[in-house]
């Protein structure tokens, strides 16, 4: 039996984590129509979710064409779309996007691994943990972009520096949420594990790690959003690569349509990139109450 299923069994036995849908619809025939209703609600929600941004883009287009806003910095939305398409074909923008993705993924992976690792170290060694916790509480309030200038002095303006900035900004939310995940594991579960004579390695693998997963995923989700923001910010401040640099270059070349096009691309990337994480979360910790609505 794989460890995760064991936990599910324990969890289901120890805690009333029964799916909400089953409680609401005790009669099978009613449940079916309920599912249909749910599908319709979901569809309506997606449609509404798309309608609002589309309406805003439409408003943008009208405000520029009708002359409500005349400024060199307010191109028509259709021009932004054209610029985006042309720049994607020209090849500079896809390269910039790949550079940014590399920075986000690389920095995120380093920061998340360190955050999770440190959280488990703190959980296992409480004395070290309280020291580390204080340090993290102090450091996490510093706006990361403020750290860029001193980091430039220490690590230069290259990829290394930007990876450190991104990793540092991911580390804190992942660390704190993982810690919360570990702390919120049912004490009864730990007792049961101890009664069954679980060794320290098995305890970590079968109790601590799976128990902390909801916290880890919460931290990772927050961390990924931050990674994207911080990566682009770092690129805006230093260096000559990525979407951040492209944004500033186009701004100072008086090409706002290209600039907004790149912002649109970031928007698309940001929303698509969170999908694999969400999917992973819902398939790994399907048993957790936060996944069941």
């Amino acid at each position: 039996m794989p460890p995760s299923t064991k936990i599910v069994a324990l969890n289901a036995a120890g805690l009333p984590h029964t799916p909400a849908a089953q409680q609401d619809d005790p009669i099978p025939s009613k449940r079916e129509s309920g599912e249909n209703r749910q599908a319709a609600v979901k569809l309506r929600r997606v449609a509404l979710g798309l309608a609002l941004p589309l309406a805003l883009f439409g408003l943008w287009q009208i405000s520029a064409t009708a002359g409500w806003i005349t400024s060199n910095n307010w191109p028509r939305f259709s021009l932004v779309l054209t610029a985006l398409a042309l720049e994607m074909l020209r090849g500079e923008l896809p390269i910039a996007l790949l550079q940014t993705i590399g920075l986000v993924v690389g920095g995120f992976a380093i920061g998340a691994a360190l955050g999770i690792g440190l959280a488990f170290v703190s959980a296992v060694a409480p004395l070290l943990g309280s020291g580390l916790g204080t340090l993290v509480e102090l450091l996490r309030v510093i706006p990361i972009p403020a750290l860029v200038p001193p980091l430039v002095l220490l690590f230069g303006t290259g990829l290394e520096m930007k990876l450190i900035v991104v990793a540092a900004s991911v580390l804190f939310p992942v660390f704190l949420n993982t810690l919360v995940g570990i702390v919120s594991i049912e004490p009864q579960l730990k007792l049961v594990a101890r009664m069954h004579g679980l060794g320290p390695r098995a305890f970590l693998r079968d109790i601590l790690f799976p128990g902390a997963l909801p916290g880890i995923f919460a931290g990772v989700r927050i961390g990924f959003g931050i990674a994207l923001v911080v990566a682009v910010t770092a690129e805006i401040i230093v260096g000559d690569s990525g979407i951040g640099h492209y944004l500033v270059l186009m701004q100072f070349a008086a090409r706002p349509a290209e600039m907004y096009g790149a912002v649109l691309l970031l928007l698309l990337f940001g929303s698509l990139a969170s999908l694999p994480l969400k999917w992973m979360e819902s398939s790994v910790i399907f048993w957790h109450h936060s996944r069941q609505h």
Partner: protein
Amino acid sequence: MMKITRRALGTLGAAVLLAPAVVKSAGLDEIRVGTIPIVDSTPLQAAIKFGYFSDVGLKVDTSPAPGGAAILPALAAGQFDFAFSNTVSTLLGVNEDLDFRIVTAGCSTGPQPPDLAGLVARRAEKITDGQQLEGKRVAVNNRNNIMSVRTAAWIEKTGGNWNKVTYVEIPFPQMADALRAKQVDAAMINEPFLSLALHTHGDELEGVGWPLSQTAPSGVVSQYVSTQRVIDAKAKIVEAFAAALGKGVAWTRANIRKPEGEALISDFTRIPAERLKEVALPVYDSVVLPQKVADLAAVMTSQKLLKQAPDLRTLIYATALVDHAT
């Protein structure tokens, strides 16, 4: 700027230890140059593109910083061997006891307008001189650079007191919008934003003065700067850099208004070539005239930006006094 240089000074000790040594790669000495992707740095880009640097055994690694604010601190910290810098920022750094040395010429203003930057105001207010700007708000991209110093000098020259004017830092791309929204009453706008603003909003905005050439015809704007530390460690490389850049200046002068020149500028600034035809370009210098630097230092001293006049004989290194473009 002064704040930044002071911070740079503080971290100098740590940074010296971390300063990268010159790396030999494929027989070429690698140098790091801090630059801004604007039309002013065309000779550097030309010298890179046409191999003038590799001809003299140099491989140039440029780090274009669009804002440019971090360039001099990075030079002071040893992250760069050379930096493209406006003369005011350089003099402010020297005033803070940083060991900056002008190693080769950059750009100047033309003898008369149009300049690469101009003072713009709203038509309706009929502003014609500095006196009318007293008590008003003027947008500059940086409170302590060549643009703000020349704007203050223009206000003074046209009968105003620059101390009674409030400077507001606004990036060039946003200046026209800030003017039209009445957040400021005048703005010192650089190209290509100057011609764009007058083109799009010519009914509302107008050029009221040319602070650069009207206060200092053919005045200095920028140079390439290094540090005494770099000169002591690699004097040969500094000489080679100046020589190669001089060839870049010669190419730029010959081709700047030709399709090749416009293609090169468009390539590194991303400004469309057709728009370049409408904008004023700087004068590309091949030799530094100490008197021009002294003139600017005098203006800065009168504006209380400098504690004392800089020692030009140490500030301007020998390579800057040789015309490398001929």
